[in-house]
């Protein structure tokens, strides 16, 4: 049940996309997200779709995984689309009117745009996490945040916290599963009853889960100290991040996409 969540799941591989420098991948993802909101015409989205589909094909990640990442946000997309449909005003007379529900042409277009944007936002970021291992991801973030150290942003500490958090997601899920089963074996019932009863029935899971998390945190801190961890100062890496031709090609492709989008925004609108 809980194991169906794919956010943050990494699928090992050695495709072009997998081998990109994580810093480049993170930046491209950010630019891609901004680009989604620059484009404001259906013609413009053709290029976005093409860029995304080609990226997925090149990464050799199966579409099933991307679809699984989309499933949980389906409701969110639906609500956004419906709200946009009814809340956007227009200049022309409405195309649909029933009591207080009014739909303008602009509303329909806006709803379609928001749906496309949200879906591709998730697809793009899923592709990032699906093709980048958590370690690479946090390494990349640390490097990207490095210049901010001067103004007091603890880049290394943030990255380490993220690494540890990501590392413990599967562990905690297993743990939750185990504790749930153990309490179910003692007759606990999590599915029926009123909301208050159900909230109360979580206590037998949460208390043991917190206790074991604290224990794990304690043990991890001890193990890190035993291996002489003392923060990021002067720490070297086994795998140095280096930009290669691949990264330049990918960046160039993204630059072209942004260029087309900006031009498209001026011409097609």
């Amino acid at each position, binding site marked *: 049940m809980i194991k169906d969540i794919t956010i943050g799941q990494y699928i090992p591989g050695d495709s072009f996309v997998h081998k990109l420098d994580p810093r480049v991948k993170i930046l491209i993802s950010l630019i891609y997200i901004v680009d989604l909101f620059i484009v404001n015409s259906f013609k413009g989205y053709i290029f976005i779709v093409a860029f995304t589909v080609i990226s997925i094909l090149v990464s050799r990640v199966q579409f099933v995984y991307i679809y699984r990442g989309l499933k949980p946000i389906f409701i969110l997309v639906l609500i956004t689309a419906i709200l946009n449909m009814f809340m956007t005003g227009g200049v022309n007379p409405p195309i649909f009117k029933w009591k207080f529900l009014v739909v303008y042409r602009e509303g329909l277009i806006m709803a379609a745009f928001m749906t496309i944007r949200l879906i591709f936002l998730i697809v793009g970021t899923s592709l990032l996490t699906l093709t980048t291992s958590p370690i690479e991801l946090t390494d990349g973030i640390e490097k990207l945040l490095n210049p901010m150290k001067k103004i007091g942003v603890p880049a290394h500490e943030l990255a380490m916290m993220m690494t540890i958090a990501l590392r413990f997601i599967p562990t905690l899920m297993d743990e939750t599963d185990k504790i749930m089963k153990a309490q179910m074996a*003692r007759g606990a019932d999590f599915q029926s009853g009123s909301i208050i009863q159900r909230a109360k029935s979580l206590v037998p899971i949460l*208390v043991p889960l917190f206790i074991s998390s604290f224990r794990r945190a304690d043990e991890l801190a001890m193990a890190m100290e035993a291996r002489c961890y003392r923060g990021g100062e002067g720490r070297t890496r086994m795998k140095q991040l280096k930009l290669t031709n691949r990264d330049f090609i990918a960046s160039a492709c993204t630059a072209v996409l942004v260029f087309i989008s900006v031009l498209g925004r001026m011409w097609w609108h």
Partner: protein
Amino acid sequence: MSIKIENLTHVYMKGSPFEKKALDNIDIEIKDGEFVALIGHTGSGKSTLIQHINGLLKPTSGKIIIDGVDITEKKINLNFIRKKVGLVFQYPEYQLFEETIEKDIAFGPKNLGLTNDDIVKRVKRAMNMVGLEYEEYKDKSPFELSGGQKRRVAIAGVVAMEPKVLILDEPTAGLDPKGRDDILGEIRSLHDEYNMTIILVSHSMEDVAKLADRIIVMNKGKCILDGSPAKVFNRVDVLENVGLAVPQVTYMVKKLREKGINISKDVFTVEQAKEELLKILNKS
């Protein structure tokens, strides 16, 4: 009160690239009052099997019939199963959550919907059964106790539901030798004095040899050996093939036999070895 498992198969994550067959056509019948040990290498399907008997997992195919009722049917009342079969997980002390030991042990009976008087009675009885003094421990926090005592509280939490069958998944893992002997002693008495049917999952051949009437060996989701300790421990070749072993003392007896000493083959505990050796020494 018997457990009948017929053609039980369980496949994890069916239809995904991570598909894995955990149980493959298992057929086992466990009779009332038996003390069964379930042994097997890590990942052999023991834990999956015992979770089926408690109704926590539903089989991909096959049936589990407890007391004539098929518990794999959709409409089965789970409390019915929990009243019959108690399951103590590995490291059960990690499931403790209440402020006092009494409250924690009462969690299971409360879920069964018993009256307060009944619950108190059962808590007292359960604590007595696992060797915890009721008056001394009832108001203590379970988190103040030592590892072995915590585990007893956790076992009492399941015993208090008064199941006819008690399944324990490696109840001695991570305990010191004294704690281990104590827990095994309690389990023995649950079987001998309270007539519970026991299914014990264990990695220790010594413990299994000392306690069980019957041993079931699993490998890769299949049940490969099933019988009395004498029958199972005579198949050293099969056991070693799947990464298991026979008790140390049995190896010693084998060595002695190779040296020409006429000692019985069926020696599985230190106690038996002592008697056999004394017999031989007295003769000569």
